[in-house]
């Protein structure tokens, strides 16, 4: 994953080509960069604007509704 991080940086910041950065990557990492080539070709600020409406998914982590204190009276 360290190599993948470097590859993303080189594509997004240094504008290197996919071919130029893929040498140290595993086959799976190469495949994911290929799949996301279009996204990575965006300017970082454009990408941030596109993602500006992304909602959070905190309901996965917390359970905001209801109560277990409605346990039966025998408890």
């Amino acid at each position, binding site marked *: *994953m*360290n190599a*993948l*991080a*470097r590859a*993303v*940086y080189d*594509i*997004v*910041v240094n504008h290197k080509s996919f071919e130029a950065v893929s040498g140290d990557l595993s086959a*799976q*990492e190469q495949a*994911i*960069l290929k*799949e*996301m080539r279009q*996204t*990575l070709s*965006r300017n*970082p*600020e454009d*990408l*941030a604007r*596109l*993602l500006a*409406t*992304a*909602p*959070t*998914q*905190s*309901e*996965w*982590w*917390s*359970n*905001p*509704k*209801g*109560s*277990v*204190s*409605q*346990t*039966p009276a*025998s*408890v």
Partner: protein
Amino acid sequence: MSSDERSEANSWLETDYWSLERQLIGDILNEASLDRSYRQHLICLLDRWARPEASHVSLETLPILVCVACGGNPHQVVPVCVAWRLLRLGAKLLDDLEDGEVREGLPEMINSAVGLLFAGQLALSKLGDEGLPPTLIQSLSQELCRAGLAACGGQHVDLTVTSPDPDRWLEIAAAKSGVPIGWAVWASALVAGAQESVLASYREYATSLGVLLQIADDYNGVWYPDHVGDLMTKRPTLPVVYALSVATTSEQKSQLQALLDDARQGDIEADRRARKLLIDMGAQAFMLVLGQMWYNRAAQSLKQAGGDHPAKHRLLLALQQVFPALQDHAKD
């Protein structure tokens, strides 16, 4: 999934499941002859993490869906869900304590967390009442202990390594998040009577899901925080881990480090500038790439699990909802 099928699943979650859960938690606390105030204290803590909307798949209801997707009887898996809930809350309390987020009542909180861990173990023993064989219950308990130990190992690294690189971050996320969720899902599939290959696929699905949740959590924690943003805490969050690992000059590293130091002192402008710098360094793009990679792994594992029960479609839908930015970036 048809609206009738969805409504049937929701209806069971809305009525039977929560009633059974409450009953089981009550039984566990009663049978231990607990001091009344301690029992109430544990119930209050559980209240703060009360049930989600039935229409949302959550970590709490994930084992039920997996059980149903595997053709099992959801009633049988309730003890696993209760154990999962109690243990998760116990672990969360300890995590909050270790992160210094609890200001008052530390000894009581430690005592509650430990109590919840014991209560979680007791919940698993209730599988015997569902007619499951002792050897299966023992296997579930042993695997739970292994998962718990792995999570503690991940937490140790998290607490002691000040500047992890992305590989190290991934190890921590897998141990703390992926392995425990993997246990809960594997356990419910086992109770449902799934075959070995199906068990392995569901476990891999859940482990990947756990890592994806952590990636999404770190993404939201920096750019869409609920309260205090992650950059204002000392938590080693993935965007920062990434940026410090790829910074090529000492000036770049120093600039980011200085902004983070100021943000941790409560400087809102420094927090804003640090977020902007992370975007410029490609941190959002990296989070998306990594998120897509773990999403693909989870989706592939779910596919390999086989079967076509509507509950499985909900598991896929839930996966798509974990990190909505993955869907957003692909638009237009």
